[in-house]
């Protein structure tokens, strides 16, 4: 078994199992802690609407904070959207998912993805710079923050390494000319999968839980979120 076969085979399956099992446990464990029922008379019973409003509303910063948090917010938009374009829009990724699950979708044009790569790369470096230089972020940061940054950055960097090696014209199906960079790229993605449930990257799903709880609670009070 060569490195690429390992990355595409047992390593991928193991990392996906950790990703799914770990994430499920992390969410399940939250609800293992008994909830405390609220017996106060609600001002508004539309708690579900409040939860949804907060889930989506918190994607956009409030006008009172836009000025002070401009760089952090814009930068976060850039790397989140950039990563989404790379992960879900790049043809080899779509094909990878299709091979794995049978589901596919139309990929984005190459130039769009390449622009996204550039923006995401710069943006993710700015995020690290901010964390290293801003006194508040430096105080708050721990191993999780820096390691999570690293495991997010590695697939991007190794993916760029793969891009530098030409794919066959029919980018969709054939193997790359040099399998080692691709294997390294896949292994870096698998490292991300393995780490995601344990660190702060799990905000990918926990954000919905905490936003919903606050949204529902505040809606009960008739308070804005």
């Amino acid at each position, binding site marked *: 078994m060569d490195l690429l076969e390992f990355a595409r085979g047992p390593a991928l399956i193991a990392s996906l199992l950790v990703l799914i099992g770990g994430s499920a446990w992390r969410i399940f464990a939250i609800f293992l802690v008994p909830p405390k029922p609220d017996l*106060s008379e609600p001002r508004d019973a539309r708690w579900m609407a409040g939860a949804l409003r907060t889930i989506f509303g*918190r994607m956009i910063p409030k006008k009172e904070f836009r000025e002070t948090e401009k760089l952090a917010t814009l930068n976060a938009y850039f790397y989140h959207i950039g990563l989404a374009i790379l992960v879900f829009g790049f043809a080899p990724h779509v094909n990878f998912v299709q091979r794995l699950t049978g589901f596919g979708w139309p990929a984005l044009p190459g130039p769009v993805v390449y622009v996204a790569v550039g923006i995401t790369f710069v943006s993710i470096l700015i995020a690290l710079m901010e964390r290293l230089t801003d006194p508040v972020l430096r105080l708050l940061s721990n191993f999780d923050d820096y390691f999570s940054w690293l495991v997010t950055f590695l697939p991007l960097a190794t993916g760029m390494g793969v891009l530098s090696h030409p794919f066959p014209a029919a980018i969709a199906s054939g193997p790359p000319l040099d399998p080692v960079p691709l294997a390294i790229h896949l292994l870096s993605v698998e490292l991300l999968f393995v780490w995601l449930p344990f660190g702060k990257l*799990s905000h990918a799903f926990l954000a919905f839980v905490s936003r919903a709880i606050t949204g529902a609670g505040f809606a009960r009070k008739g308070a804005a979120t």
Partner: protein
Amino acid sequence: MSDVNATHPLDLESPRVSVRKPGVRHDKQGTMTDAERVAAAITNFRNDFSAATAAYLESCIHCGQCAEACHFYVATHDPKYTPIWKLEPFKRAYQREAGPFAWLYKAFNLNREVTLRELEEWQELLYDSCTMCGRCTMICPMGIDIAELVGLARNGMFHAGLVPHELWAVAERAEREGSPLGATPRMLRERIAWLAEEHDVEIPLDRSRADMLATLSSIEIMKYPQSIVALAKILNRIGVSWTIRSDGYEATNFGMLSGNAAWQRDSSMRIINAAIACGAQTVVLPECGHAYGALRWKGANIYGKPLPFKVLHISEFLAENVRNGRLKLRRLGGLVTFHDPCQISRRGGATAAPREVLHALGVELREMESTGDMNWCCGGGGGVVAIHRADALRYQAFEIKMKQVERTGADVLATSCSNCRQTFDDGKAHFGWDRQMSSLLELVAGHLA
């Protein structure tokens, strides 16, 4: 000749003789050992973990955005005042004791145990520099209710005997005497008799039956007694059957602010029992921010079932009666700005009520730049105004408020919380500021049609 305390040596080199690096005061109550204090804090932190707290503590991404929402951080730019940092021991205790990977954290000591020294250091962050105003909750991209978590963390601190002395003392006094500021039932009776006579107004006390129980804040009783007269004038004009009860009049809840759940319960139950005893269908809460949160939103949970009466803040009661036409007002006019008490507006959901009342007074409302649910706290909430060692920090935060008010160009400044009013009066005296905070209730009473 006495020796200078070696712990805090004098700095003879500075322009003014001063104490070099004045030590931070870490207050302690009780005679527990260090280990017992830590154990008590952790046990009580643990008792407060729920699905909601777990979700919040799991979700933080350390983005630090909450700093920009906190008046104490914005006033000082000291990173330690970043709201989520104030919860660091609480977060660590959660990860080690109750989180989904607690066994991993413990087995490999990935997360150090919280120490007494850390808890002592965090006393300032959890009490002196947090008013639980919840502005940080509004900015958090993960939607973490940081203010709620600070309230829970205070429970652990109280049980560890790590509360600032002044706050502990007023909370203990409230438990012992029924009022944090010495407004005992006897004093209440005397004061009401005096006010009724002085202002020629009927103030019903201890009626056995009434549709409405009116409650007071000890700050009103001791510092702003004219509020009681204003309340009586309005309720008498509306013609409601009401009473104040000497067995349940104090609406402030320093048990809640200091972190003692048992004392919080005692304070709330006094009002609940008094309301049930006189058959009140409505309990009206005074111009006090945290009193609203304590009874309106936490009262039923303390009682263990839905409250058998409606709970209204006085501004909600006024708005309701303006709406139904029972309260008719003369025009006040002029330019008015309104300071939202955080626990009533942002965290209570009653943001619209005072504005409805001000509209009925015919004023031109000049909103502050960041207003309503996003208003800046005055800096005195959450018991902070009681902690004198926090004064310097609180004044720095208050400057934000002064600037906000000045920018409106309003002639009249109003609020519906006597604690905010007290903080404004204190800030006014400290800075020699020429603005006077008015009570919405008193403005209404002064303009009854």
